[in-house]
């Protein structure tokens, strides 16, 4: 649409400010992580790697990191299997029950975190699941499920089901058809669902804060405890590592996707 030059400059300026507001605050953890003093006060003093060293060697930090990796990996697999099965079921149902069940399965996204957390905590106290791997996996899986469902459903919507009929008419059984025709075609949806599930679990904090105990802590719980307890720059070092890992994953993924698309054209 036609814009006056002044409007265009103003729009650009406002968007630049919004972009800075989105990105810059998170970057502040980078200089803080090299602080020589045990403080989160600005500006940081000197330069040292000690907080990265602490992250790697202090069992509080390294164990919580390994726990998070373990929980998130199991959740990614479990949520992807359950979510993909459910997405298939909904895709092959009549519209009315499908819509009802879909709404039901998306509820974990809208239930306020704390309400869910006290509910799960109450049940876990009765069933001795507080601070257990199983407890974390179950809670995180249910929170990750909607993301898998949405991603796989989106892939199924554009999937041409006549291909399955074609495979079946050529003599393939239901499982062979699924493995050789359907799954490869919806693989991008399944993969992005799995990635979302991993990220959801790795990042989950509210429910985790309630169902944790000193024997099993995940990384976000450890970060939260550290922020509230003392000004330990190790949190800044962890933040920096997570920031770079995310940037490489997302940025790299998007660049690859863009190149692939260009290549196809």
């Amino acid at each position, binding site marked *: *649409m*036609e814009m006056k030059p002044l409007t265009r400059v103003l*729009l650009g300026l*406002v*968007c630049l400010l*919004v*972009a800075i507001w*989105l*990105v810059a*605050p*998170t970057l502040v*953890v980078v200089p803080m992580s090299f602080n020589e003093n045990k403080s*989160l*006060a*600005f500006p940081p003093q000197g330069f040292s790697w000690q907080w990265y060293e602490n992250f790697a060697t202090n069992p509080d930090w390294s164990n919580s990191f390994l726990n998070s990796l373990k929980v998130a990996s199991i959740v990614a697999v479990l949520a992807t299997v*359950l979510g993909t099965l*459910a997405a*298939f*079921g*909904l*895709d*092959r*149902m*009549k519209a009315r029950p499908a819509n009802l069940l879909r709404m*039901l399965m998306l*509820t*974990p996204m*809208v*239930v*306020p*975190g*704390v*309400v869910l*957390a*006290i*509910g*799960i*905590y*109450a*049940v876990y106290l009765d069933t001795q699941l507080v601070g257990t791997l199983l407890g974390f996996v179950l809670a995180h899986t*249910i929170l990750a499920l909607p993301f898998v469902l949405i991603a796989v459903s989106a892939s199924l919507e554009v999937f*041409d089901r*006549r291909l399955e*009929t074609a495979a079946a008419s050529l003599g393939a059984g239901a499982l062979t058809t699924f493995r050789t025709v359907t799954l490869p075609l919806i693989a991008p949806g399944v993969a992005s669902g799995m990635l979302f599930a991993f990220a959801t679990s*790795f*990042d989950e*904090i*509210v429910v985790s804060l309630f169902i944790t105990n000193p024997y099993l802590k995940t990384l*976000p719980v450890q*970060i*939260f405890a550290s*922020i*509230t307890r003392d000004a330990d720059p190790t*949190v*800044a070092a*962890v933040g920096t590592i*997570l*920031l770079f890992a995310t940037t490489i994953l997302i940025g790299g993924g*998007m660049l690859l996707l*863009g190149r692939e698309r260009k290549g196809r054209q």
Partner: protein
Amino acid sequence: MSASDPIAQPAADARPGRAWRPFALTAPAIILLIAVIGYPLLTIVLRSLSEPEWGLQNYAWFFGAPVNLTVLQRTFTISAWVTLVCVIAAYPYAYLMTAVGPRVRLVLVLCVLIPFWVSGVVRTLSWVILLQDSGVINSLLRSAGFSGVKLIRTQTGVVIGMAQVLLPFMILPLYSVMQGIDLRLMRAAQSLGARPSRAFFTVYLPLSLPGVYAGAIIVFILSLGFYITPALLGGPRSTMLSTLVQTQVLSLLQWGRGGAMGVVLLVTTFVLLALAAPVMRSRHREAGRR
């Protein structure tokens, strides 16, 4: 897929007697859902009605104490501010995303997605570092000769931090709606003599409203239940409902009272969703028809 397609897609459960199959596929997810969400929520509702004894006394307590009502009102006020800030910041940004070339768009999308994917706790930590009394903003102010301002443990600080965390939830639906708006409509309006500002307000803005509604509802609902950001950035005078629930349950072991508060929060969320659903659907239809 058109109706005149020569080879129709097979209908859902074409073969009778196999209609149960899709339900069997969803069963594992549904069972887990009932066990890990349904049963816990039911437990909370029951406890709010039964502890320490059966009755509505926990709800009477909640709505009878001025302190609770203040927090309830504050939760709504903070959520409204966060939503407003998000709409104002996201609208021009989402518009620019539709108006630029693919290269700049990629940068703009990355600016939204990268913070979106960085752990929420880490982002809140960044805000603590920025806003605290010895933080970035205050030390910059002081070195420029100004006196410092109180940002952490204030409502302003909470709103700034929450809005930044929630901004992607506003930008993404807005962008997806704006992408579908036919810009030739604007050109048509201008060729008929409308000034750009008038063309914007009478044509573009109404067409983009479904995106604003969708984003605003998501942001408002998520704000209502926010826990981490207010807990770390807020103080006693910016406590939100979630923190109160946590205090009742973990510190005071008042499961009944905490449960009642949780139920109030839950019911509010679902009522808002139910109110919003028809509005959003009809707006979508309208936008499609035009």
